[in-house]
């Protein structure tokens, strides 16, 4: 963040300088371009001026040539004529020069050059006519020449003169416009430069203010930074002291850890021995479980045998019950017989009574039969009661057998359950054996690990000693840092920005 701020400040500075530089360069460029353009229009102006001058000299020369020609017509003196011819020839050369100059200057100006072309056409005819006139003069035909001059050459001359003045007019107008343009250009450049200059001054002012503020802020930040540096240095010093005491504590802790590791080692050794013992007893438990399983199997077989016996008993009891019922039936028929005997006795008694005195003995017999019948009935009743008792006992026996059977089933079930329990127990014991083996290996690994920890602790010890040395160096460094902070403070005060 700080670095980004710094870079942004740097960027701003660079941008500011570049802006100012660019403004100056642009002023230079605009200056140069303006000067170039002024120069150009100056040359234009010069050329236009030269053209005008040449045109003027052309007019003058032609005028002079015309005057000379007219003089030649008038004069009779040959000598004078020759002098005039000479002068004419000379002046024709001048005219040619002026024409060349004008043509050169008017090459860019189409309108003026067209106008000049027309003039040149007229001038060509005018000049050839003049040559004819000169020939006429030389031949002495002066009248003829004068006539020619008055009728043919004069209108030509007038027309040329007028066209020339028109051209002059155009040229002077052009000259005027160029001058006006020149002036406008100059004013524009001056105004533009003035505006640009004030903008540059404003930008520079803003930039200077901004830079000043940046510097001010910077110095403030440096001041606070220096203060923070001072306090930080003090803090570092105290921290270093703490670290130093910490290092000493680390040394004692390391030695304590070393003793603890020794204890853990002993514990691991003990754990290994215990695990061995547990393994042994687990094996014994496994064997016991195996034996228990066999016993349970035998118990189940015994239970099965008891069940068979119980079934036999139940069958016997059922048979007994059936026989009891048969006895009951027999007793019932005996009872019937007794009843019938009783009736017979009663009938006998009745018959005896009817027989009167002869039947008295028979009546006694009948009475005796009746009492026998009564006794057998009582006996059958007793038998019936006994049978009822027997039936009850048989029923109880049946119930007892059923309960026995159920008890046997229950026993069977319990035996199977105990068998399953023993199986589970055996499994648990096997699991325990596996666990014990794992514990044993784990404690051996632990011991190995402890052996590795001892040199590691030694390394830590050395490291903490080195730490102490390093701390001393850090202390010195912090001291130096503190002094540096003080110096910085002084510097800041000195350059109070």
């Amino acid at each position: 963040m700080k670095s980004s701020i710094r870079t942004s400040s740097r960027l701003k500075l660079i941008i500011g300088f570049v802006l100012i530089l660019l403004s100056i360069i642009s002023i230079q460029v605009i200056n140069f371009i303006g000067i170039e353009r002024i120069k150009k229009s100056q040359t234009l102006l010069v050329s236009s001026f030269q053209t005008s001058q040449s045109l003027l000299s052309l007019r003058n020369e032609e005028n002079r040539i015309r005057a000379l020609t007219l003089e030649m017509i008038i004069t009779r003196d040959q000598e004078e004529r020759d002098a005039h011819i000479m002068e004419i020839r000379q002046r024709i050369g001048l005219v040619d020069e002026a024409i060349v100059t004008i043509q050169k200057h008017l090459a860019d100006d189409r309108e003026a050059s067209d106008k000049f072309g027309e003039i040149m056409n007229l001038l060509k005819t005018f000049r050839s006519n003049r040559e004819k006139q000169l020939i006429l003069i030389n031949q002495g035909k002066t009248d003829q020449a004068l006539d020619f001059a008055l009728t043919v050459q004069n209108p030509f001359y007038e027309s040329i003169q007028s066209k020339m003045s028109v051209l002059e007019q155009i040229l002077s107008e052009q000259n005027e416009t160029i001058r006006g343009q020149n002036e406008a250009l100059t004013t524009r450049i001056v105004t533009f430069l003035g505006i640009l200059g004030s903008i540059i001054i404003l930008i520079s002012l803003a930039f200077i203010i901004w830079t000043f503020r940046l510097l001010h802020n910077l110095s403030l930040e440096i001041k606070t930074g220096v203060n923070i540096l001072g306090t930080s240095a003090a803090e570092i010093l105290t921290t270093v002291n703490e670290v130093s005491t910490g290092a000493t504590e680390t040394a004692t802790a390391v030695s304590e850890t070393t003793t603890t590791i020794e204890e853990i080692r002993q514990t691991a050794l003990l754990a290994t021995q215990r695990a061995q013992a547990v393994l042994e007893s687990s094996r014994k438990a496994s064997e016991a479980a195996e034996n228990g399983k066999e016993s349970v199997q035998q118990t189940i077989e015994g239970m099965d045998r008891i069940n068979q016996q119980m079934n036999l008993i139940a069958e016997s009891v059922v048979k007994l019950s059936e026989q009891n019922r048969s006895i009951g039936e027999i007793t019932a028929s005996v009872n019937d017989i007794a009843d019938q005997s009783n009736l017979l006795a009663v009938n006998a008694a009745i018959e005896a009574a009817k027989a009167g005195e002869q039947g008295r003995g028979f009546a006694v017999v009948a009475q005796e039969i009746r009492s026998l019948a009564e006794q057998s009935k009582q006996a059958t009743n007793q038998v019936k009661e006994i049978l009822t008792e027997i039936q009850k006992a048989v029923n109880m026996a049946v119930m007892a057998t059923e309960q026995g059977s159920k008890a046997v089933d229950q026993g069977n079930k319990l035996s199977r359950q105990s068998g399953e329990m023993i199986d589970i127990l055996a499994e648990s014991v096997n699991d325990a054996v596996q666990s014990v083996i794992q514990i044993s290996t784990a404690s051996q690994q632990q011991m190995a690990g402890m052996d590795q920890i001892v040199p590691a602790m030694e390394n830590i010890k050395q490291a903490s000693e080195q730490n102490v040395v390093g701390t001393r160096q850090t202390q010195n460094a912090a001291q130096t840092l503190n002094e540096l902070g003080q110096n910085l403070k002084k510097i800041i005060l000195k350059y109070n920005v």
Partner: protein
Amino acid sequence: MARDPRELLQKRAHMIARRPAETEGASNTIMVVEFLLSPEWYAIDTSFVTEVLPLGNLTSLPGTPPFVVGIMNLRGKIISILNLKSFFNLPQKGLSAQNRVIVLKHQAMEFGIVTDDISSTRTIKLETLSKPPTSLHDTGSAYIQGVTNKGLILLNAEALLTSNAIIINQK
């Protein structure tokens, strides 16, 4: 039960050898058959009794009064069987082979009566008889000769056998 058989036989011999008590004296005793019309014990003169037998092969008849329970084949002879309980308006029970029949006969009239049980024959002194209880039903009282001191009700067999009620129904 563990009695000496010899002793038992001797006792019986004595009992058989014993003379019957001379109680009849002046022909004031009668011999009766004891029978049960539960819950009361009744008696009837043996001189009107032909025989006693278990109730069996009873054929019920339609269109007879309620006291006629049916007819019975007694060794080739058809006799009608009456129920005295319905005749005397006594509470009734169902009939079975356990019921006994006493066949009564007087002159031409002969029929059987249904009883619940028959115990034995015995002799009754007529002097010991007392009047029948007044609470008994009117129709019943006509056929009761008396009640012994042991509560045994002596039926008047002759009155029963000659009763118009029965005869009319006999038609």
